[in-house]
């Protein structure tokens, strides 16, 4: 007897954003993300509450991956930020917090969704065109002929992730390594198109951070016994390489469904082993010197190869296959049949190396753009965070080579941008409105919401109860202790602005960021002198990746628009 149950009707909620519960959850999410933001951000311990591993982090990618949000509105937000992070690595928290701020602020304006969305889009266009324009006052060309700006970029990323637990010296060390690893992936010949190589991060947990290093070529981890066997096989000349992606372990796991019946006395294992040895003979006759296998090699095959002075390294792992193929020029071989000579590659040299307690087979390529970043940190939590941070930094450097500009960091871009928008709205509202049917009053309301969303994002960098000021000339970000004495010489209270370009000794006037002030025209065209001064000083600049930040801005505004546009949430209860 079958039992049929009537389908439950779908639930339909209208105006989801207006409900108190949604607002409260959104506020919780915003609180979590905001408290993580910036170099002084607070960390979060992620765990399952029943003794699973604990992860301490402040990075959006890890947080959003682990937050199991239930409400569809929050899902939209987290998913779009996650997809931004998967493409650009950086500025995930920036996008998520800005999006939350925007939703919160424009709701107060109480305009129709259509108007809000339209105006938001205009403002976004205004921002992107300004940030991409020559007159932009908050971006610096990334000069690839010196390391200064690039190091600042890497360092800014490293210091913004406090869970890496790096000291000042360690930040310097790792920044230099990351930059070196990146430079090693740039090919020497500058033919178009330039194809960047790959930096493989090799884990070495438990060691000191300063023991991290970068090596050209690839490191393949192997057992101590394996490395001991290699030592007598010292040959320092170029080797022909065969790279196997198939298992050479001698099993026959792919026999499919059903059963295979063999007659007594026939050994399938021996048959496969014969085939392997046959393959080995071919490798010997082809004068192959090094056999690499992604999976396991049969010990008898290894023994056969080593008696013919061929080095055999197995269990290379799938992640190394692509870089190995690139480094050696070998095509991965996927079958036990005869090997086409064209699939062989070559290496310049090899050696065995020991770092910490791990033994490695170090493959030195002829000329290739692959390097290994051997990354150490004291414990698992900090190592995971550092690895992710280094990956972000490497990715950001790649993005910067495509679009060689960096934005001023430390909150300065946000405050500057807000000042610029306010100024433009004040000066020429008509050019923004065009003929959309929105009134100037509506524009002013939404622009105010947009600007204060940017400014409170910048304000989120402060976690210890300080006050944020902005100067009335450049529109930069200045941080000061809360409740400063009333009669005070402002320039003495702080030394530099958030990004480090301007010093307080210039003739500037300040105003508290949260207060209302008259719109002013922030100085466009970052003066050369300012950069030169800051380059000379010991302080390093805080800069952000232009591409990632622009995308973050776009994702934030568009996601906010999407969420504001939601009228109904229909839930299938079955």
């Amino acid at each position: 007897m079958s039992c049929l149950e009537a389908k439950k009707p779908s639930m339909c909620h209208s105006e989801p954003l207006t409900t108190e519960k949604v607002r409260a959850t959104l506020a919780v999410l915003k609180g979590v993300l905001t408290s993580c933001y910036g170099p002084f951000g607070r960390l979060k311990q992620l765990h399952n509450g029943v003794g699973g591993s604990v992860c301490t982090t402040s990075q959006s990618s890890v947080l959003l991956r682990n937050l199991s949000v239930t409400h569809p509105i929050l899902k939209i937000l987290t998913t779009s930020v996650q997809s931004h992070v998967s493409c650009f690595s950086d500025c995930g928290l920036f996008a998520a917090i800005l999006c939350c701020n925007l939703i919160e602020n424009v709701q107060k304006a109480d305009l129709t969704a259509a108007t809000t969305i339209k105006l938001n889009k205009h403002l976004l266009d205004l921002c992107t065109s300004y940030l991409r324009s020559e007159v932009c006052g908050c971006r610096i060309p990334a000069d690839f002929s010196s390391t200064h700006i690039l190091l600042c970029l890497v360092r800014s990323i490293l210091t913004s992730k406090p869970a890496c637990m790096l000291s000042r010296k360690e930040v310097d060390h790792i920044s230099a390594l990351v930059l070196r690893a990146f430079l090693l992936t740039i090919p020497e010949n500058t033919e178009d198109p330039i194809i960047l190589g790959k930096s493989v991060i090799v884990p070495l947990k438990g060691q000191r951070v300063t023991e991290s290093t970068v090596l050209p070529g690839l490191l393949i981890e192997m057992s101590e016994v394996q490395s001991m066997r290699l030592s007598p096989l010292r040959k320092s000349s170029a080797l022909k390489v065969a790279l196997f992606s198939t298992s050479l372990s001698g099993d026959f796991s792919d026999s499919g469904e059903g059963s295979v019946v063999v007659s007594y006395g026939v050994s399938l294992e021996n048959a496969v082993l014969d085939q392997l040895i046959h393959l080995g003979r071919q490798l010997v006759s082809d004068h192959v010197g090094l056999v690499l296998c992604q999976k396991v090699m049969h010990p008898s095959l290894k023994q056969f190869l080593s008696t013919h002075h061929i080095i055999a390294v197995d269990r290379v792992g799938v992640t190394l296959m692509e870089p190995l193929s690139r480094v050696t020029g070998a095509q991965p071989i996927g079958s036990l049949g005869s090997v086409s000579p064209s699939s062989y590659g070559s290496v310049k040299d090899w050696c065995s190396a020991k770092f910490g307690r791990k033994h490695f087979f170090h493959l030195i390529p002829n000329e290739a753009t692959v390097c290994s970043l051997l990354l150490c940190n004291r414990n698992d939590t900090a190592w995971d965070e550092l690895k992710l941070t280094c990956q972000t930094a490497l990715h950001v450097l790649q993005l910067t080579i495509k679009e060689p500009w960096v934005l001023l960091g430390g909150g300065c871009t946000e405050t500057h941008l807000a000042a610029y928008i306010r100024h433009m709205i004040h000066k020429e509202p008509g050019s923004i409105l065009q003929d959309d049917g929105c009134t100037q009053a509506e524009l002013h309301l939404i622009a105010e919401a947009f600007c204060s969303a940017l400014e409170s994002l910048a304000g989120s960098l402060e976690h210890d109860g300080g006050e944020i000021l902005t100067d009335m000339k450049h529109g930069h970000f200045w941080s000061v202790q809360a409740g400063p004495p009333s009669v005070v010489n402002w320039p003495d209270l702080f030394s530099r602005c958030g990004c480090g370009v301007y010093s307080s000794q210039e003739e500037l006037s300040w105003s508290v960021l949260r207060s209302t002030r008259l719109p002013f025209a922030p100085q466009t065209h970052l003066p050369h002198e300012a950069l030169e001064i800051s380059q000379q000083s010991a302080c390093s600049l805080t800069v952000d990746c232009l591409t990632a930040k622009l995308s973050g801005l776009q994702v934030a505004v568009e996601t906010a628009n999407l969420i504001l546009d939601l009228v109904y949430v229909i839930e299938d209860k079955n």
Partner: protein
Amino acid sequence: MVMACRDKRRHVGLQQLSSFAEAGRTFLGPVKSSKFIIDEECHESVLISSTVRLLESLDMTSAVGQLLNEAVQAQNDTYRTGATTLLFLAGVWSRAVEECLHLGVPISIIVSVMSEGLNSCSEEVVSLQVPVHDIFDHMDSTEAISGLETVSVSLCPFLQDPSDASSIQERHDLKDVAAQLTTYSLSGRPVKSPKFFKPQAKVEAGENTSQTLKNSLHTDTCFRKSVLIHSRHFNRTDNNQGLRKPRRFLEQCGATTFLTYGCHDLVELAVGLSHGDGSSMKLVEEAVRLQYQNACMQPGNCVVPFVFDISRLFTFCLPGLPETFSCVCPGYITVVSVSSAALIQELQSRPIRVVLIEGDLTESYRHLGFSKSTNIKTALDSMKLPEDSSEELWANHVLQLLTQFSVNLVLVEGNASEHLTEQCRHSRRLVVGSVNGRVIQAFAEATGAVQVAYITQVNEDCVGSGVSVTFWRNPLDVVDSSDRMAILLKTEGINLITAVLTSPVSAQMQTKEDRFWTCAYRVYHAVKEAKVFLGGSAVEFLCLSHLHILAEQPLQKGDHACLGWLHDTSSWLASSLAIYRPTVLKCLANGWHKYLSALLYNTATYSSELEASTFIQHHLQNAIDCGSPSSYVLKEYRKLNSGIFNSGISNKLEQTPIYDVVTPKIEAWRRALDLVLLVLQTDSEIITGLGRAQINSQKLEGFLFL
């Protein structure tokens, strides 16, 4: 998803951390009190006396507990020492951080100043590093206890069994020694040579000393003496005239000589690093000596500088035997069934040939990564059934191979088939299973054998030769409860040393093994790094006084080098650093203060921690007044006998300095502080995978839901 938020005033994580750390307090210092951990449900209990074992036995499911466990494990895996320091400092520093929070210091400033302070300490203590070099130069192979393959160590660790030693009366005739020492110092070589100590320094045991003690004291005067004076009982014999003379000389000499001349002698290094555990260190020292001798005997090897290879050192535990059986031997010691006694008897007269197997020695074994197909069936062509089972056929095949290559010994890394082992025994071949991979490697190097995964791979090139098998001691002595006996396998020039650890109390076996490895790793790190710290809390005291001086110094603008990363930023925190810095540095220093007083208190020199604390305060004031704490430490290091630097474990007779390992120690500090700061910066816990329904309603307070 549920999220727990923390109260800002009361940092739960820090409180958890300090209460966890309290549990390991008694493990600090050379005198450790053991703990029983009892499982209430199944009434099992374990005796532990180290932090690592303590954390292993505790059930710490909270997030902070797990982070603590992770940090201690990471320290232990990397260095095998420093776990207790880590635990204790994590505890005192989390209390220090809590104090800062109460005083209203912003979190970011605590983080920055504390890491800056510790960095500065790590740089400061470099001045107390003692170079370790040429320690093997004094170790002529003739001088070392030659001919004795096993060195017996009979002395019970005093710290565990003080009743034995309390009756010993010492008489030291050191007149000549003192005289000659002076001559040495005049001739410009102030560092005493321990070689020189050997013939003169005699320790005579009193009449009422137990027989074992007497014997051991006579067999190994030089070291035994150092062991004895590590005892607190010995320290009380202050009325001994002979003791005073060398001390006076050493005062003149000054401690700076260590730093210039360094530590040149293995014995001195070992004694200095033993930290009160002389019996374990004696074994380690012997192991290093044996390895060195072995390395020297290798053709052409003496040119290469000798490196202590700890991966070729193994322990073999024999519970139930008296301590006298503890020893170090070249070769590999393992247990085999008593039924093999006759076989061993027969094999021990001649060198035998060996095969080394990497995996299991069973018919069904396949190498790692081989996946067996389950859907293959064998069909019989005729009605004739095979006579033997496949196991039987395989065993016969193996035996045939062994006979063909005249192999009498098979060392197997994994399990060995019992049936085959039995059959081999009948044909006078020994199969030993569960052999460590590095042991196999050592035999491969020494005998020329090649490890194979399957016995079918064996050919003439794979077989090694020249292995000798003997009983370890008299077979009847060492038969354990499960009818197994210890045998010794070795071969000419094998780079493999086994330390046999015995203890009449089997509950102490684990502790003994742990202690042995701690000592071994201390020596290993010291030799590898070629430097040690002046020990006996000298470095910690220097940190304490250095931080106090640092706190008094005004911050200088532009003095970036010694400051934390915070100074680099443009945040207001950087400009208000100067206000909070002294407070935070003093809190950090308080951690050291507590560490030192706990250490002094644990060594039983002081009846209360307060008394110990006052004593430290006194010296701290002196050091600060003196202006340069490091020169104060160096000056006082030799002078203070019952004092801070060598209390409890001091060596009054010879003033052998106490040493400490460098990197593991500094790393332990850093890990402890990192852990505290990580917990400090965490403001909420995010618990994944739990719904609202799974949380008790009364616990809902403090949780936020997404």
